């Protein structure tokens, strides 16, 4: 997933070892990043939100959004039956229309991975598992690593970890960095998404710092939220993260993906996110390898809009599967 140009990669190693020498150097680096003006960032996101995406552009965006969905269930009440049904839906979101693409992945708790894998097989739909004492991240390091390894061994292709927000807010950036790096190592070949829980970090300055921290530590993806804290993903938070991955590639040559998760429920919202991806990070990120939606109810609205585009009519929710 990670596009690395070899000459730049050496620079990145140099940067990482320089800035992570101590808590103080890491703090100096993160606090040396340009600030984010809240009013300006929100105005920019709102401005992009007024783009009018119609006809062919809308059809393109709907299919792309479906392909970017990490179809998610993260409930205490999840059972093998529930996650298998979800996996079946991820493969064939619209049983009535074989041209409808699959979603990118199914996202579940680690103990559900094996059941999902049975259904998905080699369909190409990935299995993402949340780990590291999701959603609070409050556990000992060895437990977080064991959680990660369990998920990978059960067959997860992608690990969605949470950062220790307490450590971040207390200024223990090096601890957060080392945790991410250790989880990345425990992932093996699986790809790592790092969840900030931006609703708890609260400021855009924190979001920008967390983004750089995670990217320096080796994240393949940076992700807004667990979906368990409000507010979850917002357009301006995602904009700030997209600026970070854009700037990170410019500095290091390395591309990192972005995943807003939680709170994106309508096709209209999803299209706004795609516009922001397009105009802030650029078209290279318009691919399921580099941008995902963590969502559950979003998929049905995308399907309803897609059917409307092809038939010219809206059909009711009974025409789409509930899982």
């Amino acid at each position, binding site marked *: 997933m990670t596009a690395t140009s070899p000459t730049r990669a050496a620079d990145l190693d140099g940067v990482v070892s320089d800035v992570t020498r101590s808590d103080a150097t890491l703090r100096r680096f993160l606090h040396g990043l340009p600030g984010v*003006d809240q009013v300006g960032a929100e105005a920019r996101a709102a401005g992009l939100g*007024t783009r009018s995406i119609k006809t062919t552009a809308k059809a393109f965006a709907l299919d792309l959004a479906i392909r970017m969905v990490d179809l998610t269930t993260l409930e205490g009440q999840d059972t093998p039956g529930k996650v298998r049904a979800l996996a079946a839906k991820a493969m064939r979101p619209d049983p009535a229309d074989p041209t409808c693409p699959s979603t990118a992945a199914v996202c579940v708790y680690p103990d559900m991975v094996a059941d999902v894998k049975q259904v998905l097989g080699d369909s190409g739909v990935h299995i993402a598992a949340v780990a590291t004492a999701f959603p609070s991240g409050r556990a000992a390091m060895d437990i977080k690593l064991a959680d990660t390894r369990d998920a990978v061994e059960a067959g997860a292709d992608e690990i969605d970890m949470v950062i220790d927000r307490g450590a971040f807010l207390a200024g223990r950036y090096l601890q957060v960095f080392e945790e991410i790096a250790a989880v990345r190592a425990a992932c093996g070949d699986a790809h790592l998404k790092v969840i900030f829980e931006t609703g708890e970090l609260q400021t855009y300055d924190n979001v920008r710092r967390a983004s750089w921290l995670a990217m320096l530590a080796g994240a393949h993806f940076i992700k807004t939220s667990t979906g368990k804290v409000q507010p979850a993903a917002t357009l301006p938070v995602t904009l700030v993260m997209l600026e970070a991955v854009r700037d990170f590639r410019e500095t290091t040559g390395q591309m990192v993906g972005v995943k807003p998760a939680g709170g994106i429920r309508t096709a209209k919202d999803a299209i706004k996110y795609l516009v922001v991806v*397009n105009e802030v990070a650029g078209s290279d990120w318009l691919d399921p390898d580099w941008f995902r939606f963590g969502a559950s109810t979003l998929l049905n609205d995308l399907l309803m809009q897609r059917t409307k585009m092809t038939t010219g009519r809206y059909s009711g929710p009974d025409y789409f599967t509930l899982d």
Partner: protein
Amino acid sequence: MVFEYAPAPESRSIVDIKPSYGLFIGGEFVDGGGTSFKTVNPATEEVLAEVAEADSDDVDRAVKAARKAYDKVWSKLSGAERAKYLYRIARIIQERSRELAVLESIDNGKPIKESRDVDVPLVAAHFFYYAGWADKLAYAGFGTTPLGVAGQVIPWNFPLLMLAWKIAPALACGNTVVLKPAETTPLTALLFAEICQQADLPPGVVNIVTGAGATGQALVEHEGIDKVAFTGSTDVGKAIARAVAGTEKRVTLELGGKAANIVFDDAPIDQAVEGIVNGIFFNQGHVCCAGSRLLVQENVADEVLARLKRRMATLRVGDPLDKNTDVGAINSAAQLARIRELSEIGAAEGAEAWSAPCDLPTQGYWFAPTVFTGVTQAHRIAREEIFGPVLSVLTFRTPAEAVEKANNTPYGLSAGVWTEKGSRILKIADKLRAGVVWANTFNKFDPTSPFGGYKESGYGREGGRHGLEAYLR
């Protein structure tokens, strides 16, 4: 993967453009005595309508109608009664906002997203705001007696918004008006005349006379007016000041600008880039308070410029009625010629031009968003108002140098300061000789906020409580 936005044109069907328009005098549309002229859609060069030209007799009739309305009706109404009319006008503007926005974009060339989201909402807000003052003038501190008849001349860059800035405070204070819109953009003012009829505004309180410079001159020189309010170029402003010198007429002038947008090295860079873009490319740069001089601290200049160019490459230039258009058409062939001329001078004087890659339509008046680097205070493009989508970039080393360069201009309408350091904002803003100083934003307008210039940018203030002073004694 390429995400192409399909055309998303706003429908024109909501506006009904008549083949010809008369003058609005004494509550009725009447023929003009001058030679009628054509107004065109600058995006296509399509002729939209024939518009009557008011000659000096027409202006005289309009001033007399305004005087009669002032003496017989408007000055006798209580503030609360005047407010009712202004509130009614404001509500009708909101109800007919889409129509006004589409017509403004067709006649002016500005993108529909700006006429829809900026111009028309601000127009309504101005009427609401000054409606609120009409019965509270005793608390504003400028007296409660209106001046009489105001002669008002407005420019083509914000046709309806400038109309609102002029008419709303004048009427709230009890004056009647004769307003001349610009010759290239008369249509929304004439639609506003219809709105005055719809609101049952007493005849003669608002009169609209269309025409070019001669009509404007006849209006400001007319002996029957008590007050001149002008927004436009500094040259015309000076001529007006000469014409009214020695008379009893009160004058406010809102003229040109060459605003400095100052970016310090501790600025929120991404938002500063947005502010630079909004400062100079908003409304195709046809903004008197445009941030046309970027002063960027030398130690971040390369980074800011790289980001600015990347951002400029995403600007969507084209059909003003497409909802995704960011930059529309230049308002007229004459203005396009002026922008081209100054740009050529900039290049000839050794500044380096870079334009955003974009396909410009073949019909109509267009100019690609352009940035000049390597500009110094000695370049004409750093001194003269271009009034187009052309940015001149200068660098500075210290806050003192930034202030010195920012103030080194005959103008003083607006300025911008970008820094995350609050104390620096206050210190710099205090030293900038400009009527409006924006901090970490640019080109933000609000009816509660006074607006006006220092030096050759004019005198008097419009907007806010201060805006009442020009219409009371």
